[in-house]
C-alpha cells in the first residue's frame, strides 16, 4: 500500500468511519460510493459501532510483506453491533481464547511498518472483551 493511499484512508482506518446508504440504510466498511443492495449513490459517512462479535476467523502463519514480525496473528470477520461486517485482526489474544460469537471491541494499534526507516501504518484491530 502506498503512503498517499494510507493517508486518504486515515479517517476510516483510525476511527472506523464507514458509509451508510441514505436510501436503504445498509452500512459499509470500508466506505463505498455506490450501495450494493439498492444501487443508490446517496451514501453518507457514519461512525461505526466499536463493539461486535466474531463471525469467522483464521490464524495467519504465512503473511503478506510488512506483516512478518506479527506472525502468527488472527484475522477475523466481525459483525459490529450496528450490523456492519468488517475484516480485522484480533490482537492481545491467542487462537485458543476465541470462538465464533466471542465479543470484541475496537482498539488502535500498529498494523504494519515499512522496515526501520519507513512509515508506520496505524489503524483499528479488535480485542476480546474481558
Amino acid at each position, binding site marked *: 500500500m502506498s503512503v498517499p493511499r494510507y493517508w486518504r484512508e486515515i479517517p476510516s482506518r483510525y*476511527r472506523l468511519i464507514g458509509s451508510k446508504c441514505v436510501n436503504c440504510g445498509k452500512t459499509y466498511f470500508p466506505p463505498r460510493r455506490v450501495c450494493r443492495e439498492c444501487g443508490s449513490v446517496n451514501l453518507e459517512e457514519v461512525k461505526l459501532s466499536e463493539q461486535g462479535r466474531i463471525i469467522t476467523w483464521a490464524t495467519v502463519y504465512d503473511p503478506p510483506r510488512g506483516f512478518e514480525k*506479527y506472525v502468527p496473528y488472527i484475522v477475523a470477520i466481525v459483525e459490529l453491533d450496528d450490523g456492519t461486517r468488517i475484516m480485522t485482526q484480533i*490482537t492481545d489474544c491467542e487462537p485458543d481464547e476465541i470462538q465464533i460469537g466471542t465479543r470484541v471491541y475496537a482498539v*488502535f494499534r*500498529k498494523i504494519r511498518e515499512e522496515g526501520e526507516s519507513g512509515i*508506520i501504518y*496505524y489503524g483499528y*484491530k479488535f480485542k476480546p472483551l*474481558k
Partner: protein
Amino acid sequence: MTKEAGIIGYGAYIPIYRIKACEIGKIWGNYNGHVPIMEKAVAGIDEDLVTISVEAAKYAIRRAKIDPKEIGAVYIGTESKPYAVKPSGTIVAEAIGATPLVVTADFEFACKAGTEAFQACIDHVLSGRIKYAMAIGADTAQGRPGDQLEYTAASGGAAFIFTKRSNKTLAYCEGAVSFVTDTPDFWRRAHEHYPMHAERFTGEPAYFYHIINSVKTLMENMGLKPSDFKYAVFHQPNTKFPVKVAKKLGFTMDQIKPGLLSPYIGNCYAGSSLVGFAATLDVANPGDRILLASYGSGAGSDAFSFVVQDIILEKRNPIPSVRDMIGVRKYIDYSTYVKFRGKIRA
C-alpha cells in the same frame, strides 16, 4: 471568571502483557531475590507510544462526555516517540477525532514530560483561548539488556482533559510548582537505543532533592501540610524511592498506597506518576486533596495540588479502573519479551 483549571476527564492504559522481574534476573544470572519491583507491563508487538496514548485518550473522552472536535490542544509528554521527525501528537489527535483545529506538540523532559504538558494545558484553558486541552504522559520505556533499568522500564500512560473549573470538572488544580536544575543523572544521546545513567546522581541529588523541594515549596506557598492531603502520588522509578520520599516529606503509606503501582507495572516513565494519579482519582471522594509530584531526569520535579469535586462519583462506570486494567494480564517469558520489544537488531 474562575482562576482555576479543572480536569473533566481522564483515562489510563496499561498493556496486557507482564514479565516478572525474576524472569529477567534469571536470564542475566544476577537474580538474588532482591528485585526493584515484582513485575512490569510490556507493550505488545503492535503497540507503541502512539497506540497507548490513543487508548488512554479515548477513555478520557468517554469520561469527559465531550465532542473531541472541541479539544483544542493535544500534548504528549514522552521519551519513546516512534518517529524522530514527525509528531506523535498529530497521529493521536487524528485518531481521537480532534483534528484539524487543534494545536499538538510532543513534550520532552524524561519522566516529567507528562506533567509539563499539564502546565501548558492549565495555562491554555485559563487564558480562555482553548476550551478543552489534553495532556498525555506515556512511554514504552526500554532498558539495555542486562542493565538494572531492564527490571523496571515499562509501558503505559494516562491522558487528562483540562478545562476551566466548573461543576462538570471532577477535580481542580489549586496550585503548582516546578523545581528544575541541571543534573546529569540520566541521558540518551540522539541515535542511541538505550539510555545511560550515572549511579552517583540517581538517588539523593536527583530524585529526592528535586521532589522534596518542589513539594515543600508548593506546601509553603499554599500554607498546606502533609496531613491536609488525603492522597499523594510520586514518580515511581522502583518501589523503594516513592515510599522513601513520602516518608521524608511526612506522608504516610495510607496516603500513597492507591497510587503506588510500580510493584505491579514497573516504571512507565512519563506515564508513571500520571497513571498513579489516575488510579488515585479512581478511589478518591469529593473534597479529597491529592498531591501529585513528578520527577524527570536532567532534572526537575513538578508538584500539583488537586481538589476532588462532586461529579467524580458519576465518572467511574463503565470505564475500567486502573486497578481493573492491572488485573487483566498475561505473563510472557524473556524470549517473547525480546520479540515484542524489538531487542534483536541486525
